[in-house]
């Protein structure tokens, strides 16, 4: 069995990729994907914890977190659609009518 710390390590890498991506990419969809990556990093940790502590809670958390991620994507896409319909862009840079 793979040690929990290895899984958590992978989580750290995933999280870092996600976070870096989140503030380097302009495209909102890509950022959304990065968020998913970060959530998955968390899920890995939950899974690792569940296996380490043989606790069923971790699995449940993971399941629910996946559900949350799904909801988030759904909502996110809806919002991006709405943004696109008014400003015809989904770039994080270009949508900046609101500032200062």
């Amino acid at each position, binding site marked *: 069995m793979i040690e929990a710390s290895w899984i958590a390590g992978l989580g750290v890498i995933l999280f870092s990729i996600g*976070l870096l991506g*989140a*503030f*380097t*990419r*302009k495209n*909102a969809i890509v*950022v959304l994907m990065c968020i998913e990556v970060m959530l998955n990093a968390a899920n890995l940790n939950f899974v690792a914890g569940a296996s380490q502590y043989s606790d069923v809670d971790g699995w449940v958390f993971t399941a629910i977190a996946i559900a949350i991620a799904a909801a988030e994507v759904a909502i996110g896409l809806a919002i991006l659609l709405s943004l696109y319909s008014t400003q015809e862009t989904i770039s*994080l*840079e270009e*949508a*900046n*009518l*609101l*500032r*200062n």
Partner: protein
Amino acid sequence: MGDSENEWGLLGPLVPFLLVAPSLKFLAGWESVEAAFLIVLVPLLTFPAILVVGQIYNGNETWKQRYKEGGIFGLGALSLSLSIAIWIIYDYVVGSAHFEAHSVVDPFSWLTFDVIEQSGTQWEISTGFADIGVGVWIDSITLMLLFVATFLCFLICWFSLGYMNTDKINEDSNHRFYGEFVLFAIGMFGMVLADNFLWLFIFWEIMGLCSYLLIGFYYWKDSAAYAAKKAFLTTRVGDVFLMVGLLMLYDIYGSLDFAVLFDDPSTGIGGAVVESGELNWALLMLFIGAVGKSAQFPLHVWLPDAMEGPTPVSALIHAATMVNAGLYLVVRMVPFVDVHVNGVAGLEEFALTVAWIGGITAFMAAAIAFVQNDIKKVLAYSTMSQLAYIFTGLGAGLLFLNIDEHHAGYFVIGASMFHLFNHAMAKGMLFMASGSVIHEVHHAHDHVRELSEKYSTNESDDHGDFDPQDMRNMGGLAARMPVTATAMMLGSMSIIGIPLIGGFWSKEGIIAETWAACLHEEPLMLVPAVLVLATAGMTGFYMTRMWLMTFAGPPKSEVVGHVHETTPWIKEPLVILSVITALGGFGLALLGASEYLGDPHHAELSYHGLLDTLEHAFLPEDSHLRLVGWTTMLLAMVIGPVIASRIHGGRLIDGVEASPLVSWLVDLSSRFGSQDVSELADSQLAEALQRRLYFDDLYEIALAKTAIPFAAFSAWFDANVIDGVIKQIESNSATGSVQIRRITTGSARDYILMAAVGMISIFALLWGVNN
């Protein structure tokens, strides 16, 4: 312009006022001193009444004709004060009331308070400080000044009915005049009667206010407004020091009551022994106040300008009463100095200071008076000079007392006070007389102008270039104004010190004792002694010059021909005062006024004998003094007047007769030949004297170069530095705000980045705390 006889009926309202004193005495059975408070109280109630009623009925004919715009009420209140004052004086001088050194009536606790002090390490409520009360104080000086004040107030108010109310320019503002006039009377009466230094100061300031108000009576004249301000501020400088003096005095003695202070000036009420060093400073501070009020060097600059006020004001305030306040204050310092009875030794420097200031002012003022052409200005400088005489005398007296030469001391202080009396009467009258001259000349000029307007359409000839106060527009008035000329002659004689008349009796004493102090006690008195001696001669010159320029010689303008001495209400006071001026000095000298006024334990006036008195005056035992006395007489009576006659004397124009009372003088003046002094008049010295020795200029420049720029700088500093800090905070915040809002770029990427930065900072902090 009606005859004065026709207006006597207007005096009806005075009757109830005059009945007050007798009815109090006979019906209510009051003692005179019990009524003393009425002297102040009645005017106190009258003055707002005059102002308010006058403001309401302004312009009303009855108010103008019947009540003389309030003048009648003022006169009524003053007549009441006068009657009570006379009652009191009568009671103390010949009647039932007596005082051993003094009487205190009705002290009333005005301010009560506590003071703590440190005894050892303990702080506790001190018993060495008394409350401040108010009451009536009566001694010989009070009686004399009370008479001077009430009597002159009354007479000059009377005079004003004629002088003020017949001048168009005053129409509808006379109620202001009378209101302020009465307010002034309150101040003067109160100051004379007050039984402690604080209330003395309070009334002193009230007088200052009235002086300000009345000098600025013609407030619309720039010069009057300026002069008023100058007078107030200059005296204010003195007053502030006077106040500091009071603080020190209170600290030393724990009380400001005359009764406490004079009983034993060597210890405070807490029992502490008084040090001369401290007291010296306190008295010096008080003296600076006196210098300001009595227009002595170096705070003298306001008095000549104060002549911008109406002439009755000059007569009353700036010659006869208020300016005496400084002298009164100094004479109240006598007990501190009088080592014969409990005084504090070691105050000679203070006495010398007083004498020096007196001597310098006397000489300087007389010198400036040489070149003045404005009749009132001459009188103003004369006032300064004469007051300075009194200061010199007081200084000498204080010196004597402080080295326990109390006989000489009491005598010279008495003489000084006596001179105060003589001078007040004479100067009050002189000013009224000059007022009479000015008034009639002014009317005559109006008349002339009306005539000329009839024949020409040229309206450029306005009052602007005609000054009714300028003696160069007069001359030969002796023929046109007999009463005035006589009065002025007598007044001048009294001021000069012509033997037997008025001021002679007191002035002689002052000069002689000043020399005595110099010769026998203190060489440093030489300077004031020489100066006052010289001034005696100078007085003779400038007073004669004034009279001659006004009344003798040919008329210097066509206006003179139209002058008539017809204005009602003006002549009566002149006549009364002429008599008092001429004879009062002699009479009082016979009664030993100098001793009475100088020695607090000399409780009554008594007849001294004619020959004794004369001998004492003309042939004192001390040969030095005899020399001084005769020199004085020579200078004052002969040298000064003769020189004046040579320059300004001359007969009237032919065919015009002066009244016999003065014609001899006119004739005499023409007998000494004439002398052209135009070269002298153009000299640097004359210029300097014209410019009043540049003192005014100096003060002006000093203020303009220091205070005003500094004030402007302060205002700038406040607006730009102190408030500038606030403004800087405002603008910096605004800038900071704009900057910090820039961070919100509008790009979600940056927001995430910032969040990440924040996250890392939190880690750093957590990590830092953990280690």
